[in-house]
């Protein structure tokens, strides 16, 4: 019998426009700075120096130069913003992970088993979606009390319905394809089919939801910390730094401005990258 050979197609590198490359670099820089905070922060973020309160950027006191100024307790703002980035990023990454796992599992189960399972899960989604997420988060924190783990769980467990909707719809589409039937005939169980065949084929749209949610989570974290319901002082997070700075807005605007600008840049870069990812994953937008 004739055997046909043909060359492998050359692996394609993702083509990024220059603007996206710049944004990607910005994102990487923020993440690296956050990760390396303990090594690059010039001061201990909680070291107070009451004689150097509310000093402007560039102020030098006793041989210590405060590059971004100091806050109301004379703490180095640069160090606090660097450490705060760790908290803000950790909270958003972990809460996105929690809501992705919960939401996608429920969506796939609803789409695979249909029937009353679908009714139960999708009506729960409708109910969750009808309650404003920030309100739900505020109420939950008010009842449970603040804390890092609680904050992650509250954000993660209030934001899963969007993933469930997407995963459910995608699962319905994929589950009807012949290769899923072939796996059933091969003897594969529901668990194997969901994890090995359905999940990889619905991962694209879910990734896109996750990037959009990531930006939102940073904002939620900052918002809740700003309201005093998230990260508690003296631990720095961007939201809590801004919350304090609000009281000194006229005398020391840099306390709000610096973490605010960082927040803006991070959310902006994540959203731009998410947009690009969505276009890149969708094969229709790529020329072959």
């Amino acid at each position, binding site marked *: 019998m004739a055997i046909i050979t043909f060359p*492998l197609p050359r692996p394609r590198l993702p083509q990024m426009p220059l603007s996206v490359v710049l944004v990607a670099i910005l994102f990487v820089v923020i993440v690296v700075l956050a990760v390396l905070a303990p090594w690059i922060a010039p001061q201990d973020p909680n070291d107070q120096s009451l004689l150097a309160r509310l000093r402007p950027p560039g102020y030098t006191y006793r041989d210590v130069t405060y590059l971004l100024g100091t806050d109301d307790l004379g703490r180095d703002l640069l160090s606090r913003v660097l450490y705060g980035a760790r908290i803000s990023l950790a909270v958003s990454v972990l809460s996105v992970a929690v809501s992705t796992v919960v939401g996608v599992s429920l969506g796939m189960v609803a789409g695979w088993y249909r029937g009353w399972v679908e009714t139960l899960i999708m009506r729960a989604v409708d109910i969750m979606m009808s309650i404003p997420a920030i309100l739900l988060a505020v109420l939950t924190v008010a009842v449970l009390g603040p804390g890092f783990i609680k904050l992650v769980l509250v954000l993660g467990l209030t934001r899963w319905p969007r993933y469930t909707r997407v995963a459910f719809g995608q699962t319905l589409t994929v589950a009807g394809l*012949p*290769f899923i039937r*072939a796996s059933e*005939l*091969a003897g594969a169980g529901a668990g194997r089919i969901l994890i*090995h065949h359905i999940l990889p084929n619905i991962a694209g749209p879910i990734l896109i939801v996750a990037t959009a949610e990531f930006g939102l989570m940073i904002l939620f974290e900052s918002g809740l910390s700003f309201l005093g319901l998230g990260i508690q002082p003296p631990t720095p997070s961007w939201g809590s730094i801004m919350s304090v700075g609000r009281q000194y807005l006229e005398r020391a605007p840099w306390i709000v401005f610096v973490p605010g600008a960082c927040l803006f840049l991070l959310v902006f870069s994540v959203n731009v990258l998410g947009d690009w990812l969505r276009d890149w994953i969708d094969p229709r937008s790529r020329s072959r």
Partner: protein
Amino acid sequence: MSDGERAGSPVLELHDVAVYFGGRKGLLDRERPVIRAVNGVSLTIGRAETVALVGESGCGKSTLSNAIVGLEPVQPGGSIRIGGDEVTGASRRALRDIRRRVQMIFQDPALSLDPRATIGAAIAEPLLVRGVARGAALKARVARLLRQVGLRPEFASRYPHQFSGGQRQRVVIARALALEPDLVICDEPVSALDVSVRAQILNLLVELQRRTGVSYLFVSHDLGVVRHIADRVVVMYLGRFVEIAERETFFAKAHHPYTRALMSAVPEPDPVLQRGKERFPLHGELPSPAKIPRGCAFHTRCPLATEICSQSRPELTPRPDGAFVACHHV
């Protein structure tokens, strides 16, 4: 049942199999019209036999295939036996064992393979989940299967989109044969392929049958393909069989008016033959399976229909040349 006993029994026995859709499912569900997609059919397929199932779209061919492999529940009263073992009412474990003897090849090879899995993984899956082989032995089995369908073993690490339609269908065939089934249901396996590739795939199926003794239930609406591959032909109309005949008998003389209409619709490449061909046009559309006509289901479109056809339903009865036909008039 031992393997020795099983070897004696037919690969597949259908007795009065029916598949209905709709009706009231749950307490709160609203009543839907009952669709009788498959309406009581009986058939036996022997070892190394190829039975072609023909009929127009919506006649129940695919539903019947799905019922045989267990993807569609059968109405109580019917019986499906695979290698002598009853499928309906069998326990889950017994069912799992019986099911491996029947595999399926689908119409569209582009949709029959997971785009995110290598073809090696696709072929290995049935062997892996059934615990037949693992590790190096599994790799060797996959390589052997690939060679068997005319592909190179190195292809195992490639993805479906790197193959042509015909090559993908070869992969699908390799996966279907991985568990060494007794019966493979081919649901229009070549209708999505280029004409030039069709013959290759059909010849591969014939060759694999000669080598392994597998039986095929070959679902198709292409009588040219059927003539090439089938030992026996079954014609289906609105959920019932209307004619069953050996290939030679079938193509020598079609009995049922519906079969004659199907035959007359196949164009002849020779214009002289085409001009002299029997014209047997049908009027009207295929009735909805939710409202199957009383009596003979075909009487609304049949040029031979008389009073009796709308009164009583003809059974499949033998004719002198060995064909079984369900018609009052032929």
